[in-house]
């Protein structure tokens, strides 16, 4: 057993990265101008709305909200009595909103959707049914489209089935902040929790708004509530549940609709053409206006002859508002991203119910599924306008001409571009401690034959890509071990599951490990304990060693597993590939030992390097010795077979064009980003690859003793012909 590296101590005192600049922005007062990213603007809006508590689970694109609040806990949140937690999962975050059921406490939680919403849905359904007193707002990062790392579903259906109003705001920073604050009023008025949905690009969007003062919550940790409450009407047991269901439909949703109208949540931009119009989700406003602009039907400020109804609230819709917009038009176009098209369907039903002559266009001009990027929106709108907008003739002509010229650009590109660029998905970083685990698993596979490996969510999912192509299924965060339960026996293999420490704490312990232990599975779990929720930005976990706000606290994965009765558990230093392979082999072969766990406990290299870089800069500045270490490849020795790449995929292990006419292809090379993790040498040994790798270790600013020794050694080797 290797010793457990206590890297996390270095992290004590808070996050590896500093968000102090962002924290300052949260302190801005009335009249100050905020400049920054949208997700941070929303964080500020929460403080301006007087939240009493905030929680959530990190995940792109909303991790930033959690990161910044964690750092703001002591300087900003504590003085205002605001409770902050980094919840163990989205379910925990949703359950946190329970504080708003009885008490006039405003609260907000955040997570990545759809996955986070799925995890949270048990608590969400119960919350929405019981109803809230204080405003309860859920900021969801809608991880949909380009750059998304999850299954492609939208949150709309969840809002519908649980009666949770869903805001999809227009991406203007002032408006975004205003709508975030209004969301709390909407929640309190309708007694329903409210979703605010933010697309990936919108979360990272920069902009500015004029701040208001932060509002200290009426009741908080410093100024306490009069007392605890109990009310059977709020309990989700019959007959309360029946009453709650009726109340949602008869009182709460209508109240939400009235609020939406009274407060102009949705926006009507009238135009000079009166027989057509576009109904759109707020989040698509910028794209729609740009498309109109490109077609010659809007100026840079969004003024267009085509009337627009911008739905910043896409659930619930307000029938009167929609009917009012479409009643005198021959047709409208509905811009609704995702599937199914709930809005379009509802508008079509309204047109029919009210016997209006308006034709409803939508899907068909736009694709049934997928992100509404500019190209898609522009093509759909052009199609609609060319069909439905004949006057003014000048406009119709401009639309036709501009459509052609945009199409010409695309056509020319596809004609000229013969070689498509290679796919370039994200992968393990240079020096990642997870990569060598998969190198070892790959070598194990060579001995045992193809393995069914159950994968999990997190950086480790990248093992499913080249070069490893390992991992047969992904069923959700922390689900890998559970998802292999019925696979092993019919395959005649032990179940093999890989899980990160994030997944372990999120769901893997109960759903995976305890389940396997309880049911007596013949399985092997590899836990990649790199210390952080790395894929989302190295957020701290229970096993990191400290909380995001710097309190010393460690829940050990090993102790936890031993406590549930796991007998076979070993730690490996993943960079020692041969050793890891041996341990994996023994775990695989220990068929009668129930659940076997192998923990790889090397720290995330990104976090390590962030610290290492600072340390090296300090040593350099102080003129102290510091090591420069890197791997290299002897070009002449490299056979050009690239087996080493197929066992690594490290970004810094790359190719160098060869001049030698005898060589078949480029040689391997290690570029200057190498962090000397050692995998190259270890893999060359463990797999008996080519002997072209070397490790070079220099000591800059070496002391006099080391320099003298080195000089002596050089003298000796030089005598023997070295240079």
């Amino acid at each position: 057993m290797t010793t457990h590296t206590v890297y996390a101590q270095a992290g004590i005192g808070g996050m590896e990265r500093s968000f102090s600049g962002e924290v300052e922005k949260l302190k801005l007062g009335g009249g100050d101008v905020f400049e920054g990213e949208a997700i941070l603007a929303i964080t500020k809006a929460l403080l301006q709305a007087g939240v009493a508590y905030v929680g959530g689970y990190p995940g792109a694109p909303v991790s930033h909200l959690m990161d910044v609040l964690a750092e703001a806990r002591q300087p900003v949140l504590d003085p205002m009595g605001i409770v902050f937690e980094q919840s163990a999962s989205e379910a925990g975050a949703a359950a946190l909103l329970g504080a708003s059921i009885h008490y006039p406490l405003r609260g907000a939680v955040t997570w990545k959707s759809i996955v986070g919403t799925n995890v949270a849905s048990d608590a969400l359904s119960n919350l929405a049914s019981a109803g809230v007193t204080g405003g309860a707002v859920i900021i969801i990062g809608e991880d949909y489209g380009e750059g998304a790392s999850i299954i492609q579903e939208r949150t709309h259906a969840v809002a519908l089935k649980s009666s949770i109003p869903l805001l999809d705001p227009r991406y203007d920073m002032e408006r975004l902040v205003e709508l975030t604050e209004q969301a709390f009023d909407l929640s309190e008025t309708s007694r329903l929790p409210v979703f605010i949905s933010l697309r990936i690009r919108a979360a990272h969007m920069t902009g500015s708004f004029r701040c208001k003062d932060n509002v200290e919550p009426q009741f908080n940790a410093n100024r306490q509530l009069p007392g605890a409450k109990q009310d059977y009407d709020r309990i989700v047991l019959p007959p309360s549940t029946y009453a709650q269901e009726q109340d949602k439909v008869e009182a709460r949703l209508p109240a939400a609709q009235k609020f939406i109208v009274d407060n102009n949540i949705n926006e009507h931009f009238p135009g000079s053409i009166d027989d057509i119009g576009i109904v759109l989700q707020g989040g698509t406003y910028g794209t729609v206006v740009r498309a109109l602009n490109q077609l010659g039907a809007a100026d840079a400020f969004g003024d267009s002859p085509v009337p627009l109804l911008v739905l910043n609230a896409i659930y619930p819709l307000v029938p009167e508002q929609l009917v009012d917009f479409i009643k005198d038009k021959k047709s409208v176009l509905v811009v609704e991203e995702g599937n199914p098209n709930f809005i379009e369907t509802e508008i079509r039903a309204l047109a029919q119910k009210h016997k209006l002559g308006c034709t409803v266009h939508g899907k068909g001009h736009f694709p049934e599924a997928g992100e509404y990027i500019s190209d898609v929106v522009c093509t759909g709108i052009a199609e609609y306008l060319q069909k439905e907008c004949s006057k003014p003739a000048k406009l119709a002509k401009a639309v036709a001409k501009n459509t052609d010229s945009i199409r010409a650009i695309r056509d020319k590109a596809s004609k000229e571009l013969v070689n498509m660029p290679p796919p370039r998905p994200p992968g393990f970083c240079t020096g990642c401690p997870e990569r060598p685990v998969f190198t070892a698993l790959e070598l194990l596979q060579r001995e045992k034959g193809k393995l069914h490996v159950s994968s999990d969510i997190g950086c480790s999912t990248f093992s499913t890509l080249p070069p490893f192509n390992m991992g047969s299924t992904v069923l959700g965060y922390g689900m890998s071990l559970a998802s292999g339960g019925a696979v092993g026996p019919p395959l005649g293999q032990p179940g093999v599951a890989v899980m990160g420490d994030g997944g372990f704490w999120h769901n893997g312990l109960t759903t995976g490990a305890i389940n396997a232990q309880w049911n007596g599975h013949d399985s092997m779990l590899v836990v990649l304990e790199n210390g952080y929720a790395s894929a989302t930005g190295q957020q701290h976990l229970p096993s990191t060693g400290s909380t995001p706000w710097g309190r010393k606290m460690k829940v050990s994965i090993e102790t936890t597993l031993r406590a549930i009765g796991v007998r076979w558990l070993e730690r490996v230093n993943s960079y020692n590939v041969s050793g890891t392979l041996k341990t994996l082999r023994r775990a695989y072969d220990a068929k009668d030992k129930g659940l076997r766990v192998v923990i790889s406990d090397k720290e995330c290299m990104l976090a390590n390097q962030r610290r290492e870089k600072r340390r090296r800069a300090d040593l350099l500045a102080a003129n102290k010795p510091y090591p420069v270490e890197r791997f290299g490849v002897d070009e002449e020795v490299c056979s050009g077979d690239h087996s080493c790449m197929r066992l690594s995929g490290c970004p810094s292990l790359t190719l160098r064009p060869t001049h030698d006419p005898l060589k078949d292809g480029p040689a391997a090379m290690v570029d200057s980003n190498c962090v000397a993790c050692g995998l190259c040498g270890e893999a060359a040994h463990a797999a008996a690859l080519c002997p072209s790798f070397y490790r070079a270790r220099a000591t800059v600013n070496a002391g006099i003793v080391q320099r003298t020794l080195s000089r002596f050694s050089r003298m000796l080797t030089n005598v023997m012909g070295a240079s």
Partner: protein
Amino acid sequence: MTAERPICVLVAALGGQGGGVLMDWFVAAAQLEGFPSQATSTPGVAQRTGATTYYFEVFPQTGLARRPVFSIYPAPGAIDLQVSFEPTEAARALSGGFVGPETTVITASQRIFSTSEKIRPGDGTIALTPILEALSSCAGKLAIIDLDEGVRAARCHPNAVMFGAIAASGVLPFSIETCRKAIKQSGVAVEQNLAGFEAGTRLPSLSIAATQKPPAEFSPPPADLKNEIQSLPEPVRPMAGHAATHLLDYQDKAYAELFLKRLGKVIEVDRQDMDYRLSVSVARRLAAWMGYEDVIRVAQLKTRPGRLASIRRDLAIGDDVPLKVHDFLKPGREELLDLLPAFSGGTKKGVQTGRGGAGLALKLKTSGPFGWATMRALASLRRWRRSTRRYDREHRMIDRWLKPVTDMAADDYQLACELADLAVWARGYGDVRSRGFAELDKLVGDNKHANAEMRPAYADEIRASLAAAYSDTETGLR
């Protein structure tokens, strides 16, 4: 109605190249000029690889009563500047429709290879020239810059150099001075970034020709074999000369002569009207094969004069900085036994088997006296090479391979050339080489080629094997 819109900039980078900071500079520059702007990005994950894009819009007017409407998505037909930190990322932008006559494209010239290119045996890299030609044809203006040159000169991150090149292009409505201010304002690594920025403003645009792969460099023929090489048909001379030099270095003059003797037999049956294509190909394959890398050769290469000095240059360290170089060698059990004399009962068949991973794992400190001496000792085994089992096995297989190549030249020239290429399987070390030999054993043994009736099927088999040699990324694994 005016059709004016903001100036739109799409930046394509790989994670870790500093695209986010570049955006920060854009936003700061816009603020300094008093222009409304908006930046956004799609980096959803923290990993330092993978293609990622950043998008920026700026409306170059001050004192506006209303804010223009910005979009979070780039739109085909509305990209004024497309910046790529890697040339195939510019191609990705082009395939997305983001390069048109209104677009100025600035791209770095250096390839950063993708995993899918790297894991192929042989050359799996995609051709760059057609990509640059497509960009040149579609873009309003194309600038190909040597970003690495700027990075080396200024010792900064590529984003600062790129910012300089962007500023120099004049597409953005920011003065050079404003850009400098934006960098200063950020307060991070200001000196290096400013140096990088200045370097970037001065980078010239390269021609597409300047980005092409370096041509093969043929070494001149060895002095004492000059006449023999000169007597060969003209098209064969450069390759044969290079090969002879290579083998002279590898073993000795007699070895180079053995090569020429074998090559001579192929030349005899080769065709002048085919420009001796077969002979050139055989010369190349045969020389590579005869220069097979055994422990002796590896030790020779690892103790080449100047190797340690070149490692110092790579690390950018001076002569007096203490340096330790460790070499990772793991001759397999078979490879060690291969050093024994051929008569010691070696494998007669050309195929060796054995689980990868078994062998003598050495981590030799070549930079130290002991490691160096060990390596030299291994290299000095060269004089015994001819009597080793390995030599015996390699040369038996070479002869087996050359037979069908020579035999087929008259009947089916194309097939002979393909058979010559089959020598690609004699590659790599340990298991990889064993598998290659197994493939050769299957295809060049037993006079399979002699049966005229079976020949079409044989030719198909050869072609399939060649395709597998270049495409099968699993060859090294299973």
